């Protein structure tokens, strides 16, 4: 009988030791965690335990805090509003409560915390206390606040940029209209002089006035270009589409420019496939775009050069190719070709009048039609512009 008693005692002792070891392990587990404050409250909210995380987060040593009420961690406003008690009540009722709010450290400073309070019940269901796990989210909150501020800042900048862009477009429109008036007056007066309404002109006078006229026309052209671009940029261009025969349009444009082309001793040819259908386009704008490209082809090609224009249908897309054997464009310049105010200096560009706005405008117009314009070129060999417009927009 003594044997079985001592055997029971040994088993009991062993279980006891095992339990102690387990307990020690748990204590070590909780105590070692530095990132989270994990501690016990009694049913009334008195702090019963402490860990490294709690000391780190809240600043109190365990000897300073055990036995005190946990409302010491709350801000004065929260204490006045009875938040600590309310949270315990909820935890007790539902089982747990999670909160994100300010908490107060020993030195009075605040930190943004994520807090979980869990009600602890024994096997019979009695409340024995609460487990409190607190995480310092100040860093995360600061990052979130900074992100939010940066976001607002970006949005404000975006609005400002939009406003500036609108301002710029308005200014260009206004200035262009104002500039048209004196340019118009000059045009009339020079025309009147040349038409002989006044006295007969000497040959020298005629030459001077013609040069002035040429310059004046250039002024008007630039102002018109500026206005067109400003309108495009402001999104004010509304396309009025009608079904158009592109072959006829291109052919008409070539006819119109043929006088100048032949004066330059250049030849121009048009090859159009039979199956090219009519396409819905804004005839006014599209025509201007084609005129621009063909005009460029002629301007940037030497005398006796050739310009070839082709129109064909490829997989539901009308493809217009304009190829010249002129000065060509260097690979490095191709990227900036369609930018505003870009003029690439080459052996012919000195003699070419232009504002540098043309290709920018052309591309925008083609894109508004749902199409694309691309360019291939070899310096001194020539250039091909390819305009593609879908039949169905």
């Amino acid at each position: 009988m003594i044997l079985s008693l001592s055997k029971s005692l040994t088993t009991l002792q062993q279980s006891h030791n095992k339990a102690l070891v387990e307990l020690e392990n748990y204590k070590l587990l909780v105590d070692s965690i530095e990132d989270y404050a994990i501690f016990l409250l009694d049913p009334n909210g008195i702090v019963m335990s402490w860990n490294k995380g709690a000391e780190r987060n809240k600043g109190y040593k365990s000897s300073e805090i055990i036995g005190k009420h946990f409302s010491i961690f709350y801000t004065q406003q929260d204490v006045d509003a009875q938040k600590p008690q309310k949270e315990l009540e909820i935890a007790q009722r539902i089982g747990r409560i999670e909160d994100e709010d300010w908490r107060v450290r020993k030195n009075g400073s605040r930190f943004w915390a994520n807090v979980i309070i869990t009600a602890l019940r024994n096997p019979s269901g009695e409340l024995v206390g609460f487990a409190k796990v607190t995480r310092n989210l100040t860093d995360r909150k600061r990052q979130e606040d900074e992100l939010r501020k940066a976001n607002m800042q970006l949005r404000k900048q975006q609005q400002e940029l939009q406003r500036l862009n609108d301002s710029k477009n308005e200014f260009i429109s206004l200035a262009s209209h104002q500039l048209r008036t004196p340019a118009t007056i000059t045009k009339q007066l020079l025309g009147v002089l040349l038409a002989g309404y006044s006295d007969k002109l000497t040959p020298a006078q005629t030459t001077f006035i013609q040069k002035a006229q040429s310059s004046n026309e250039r002024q008007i052209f630039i102002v018109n270009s500026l206005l067109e671009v400003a309108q495009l940029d402001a999104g004010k261009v509304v396309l009025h589409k009608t079904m158009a025969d592109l072959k006829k349009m291109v052919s008409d444009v070539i006819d119109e420019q043929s006088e100048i082309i032949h004066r330059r001793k250049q030849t121009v040819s048009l090859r159009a496939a039979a199956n090219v259908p009519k396409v819905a386009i804004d005839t006014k704008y599209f025509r201007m775009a084609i005129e621009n490209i063909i005009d460029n082809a002629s301007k940037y090609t030497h005398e006796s050069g050739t310009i070839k224009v082709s129109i064909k249908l490829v997989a539901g897309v009308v493809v217009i190719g304009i190829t010249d054997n002129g000065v060509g464009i260097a690979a490095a310049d191709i990227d900036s070709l369609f930018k505003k105010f870009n003029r690439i200096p080459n052996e012919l560009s000195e003699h070419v009048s232009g504002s540098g706005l043309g290709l920018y405008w052309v591309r925008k117009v083609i894109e508004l039609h749902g199409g694309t314009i691309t360019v291939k070129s070899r310096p001194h060999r020539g250039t091909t512009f390819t305009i593609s417009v879908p039949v169905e927009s």
Partner: protein
Amino acid sequence: MRKILVVEDEPVLRETYELILSTQPFTVHTAENGEVALEKCSQNEYDMILLDLMMPIVNGVDFLKRFMPDAPDQTRVIIMSNLSAGAELDAAMQLGAIQSVLKASLGPKDLIALVRYDLGTM
């Protein structure tokens, strides 16, 4: 002889248009703004009015609003403006102008051609 009224606030332009059109078999009157134009219209019946839009006192659109309801049948209004787009231009066309022309695109010969063509004396 056909009567033309040129309504334009810019003095040099107004005088030059008058000079150009006077080389043709027309009687040419001028007005520096919409109000003067209305006065002239109350005393004359014009075959054509070349109308600027941006003018002081009474602008082109307001002139049309007051003039067009009781306008003589034969009066044809052509807008001559340096506006290439916009509400004023749309309004003017809605009020009964026959066409609009960009001033900056017309030299003396073009102006004459425009008027003669429209009046059918080409």
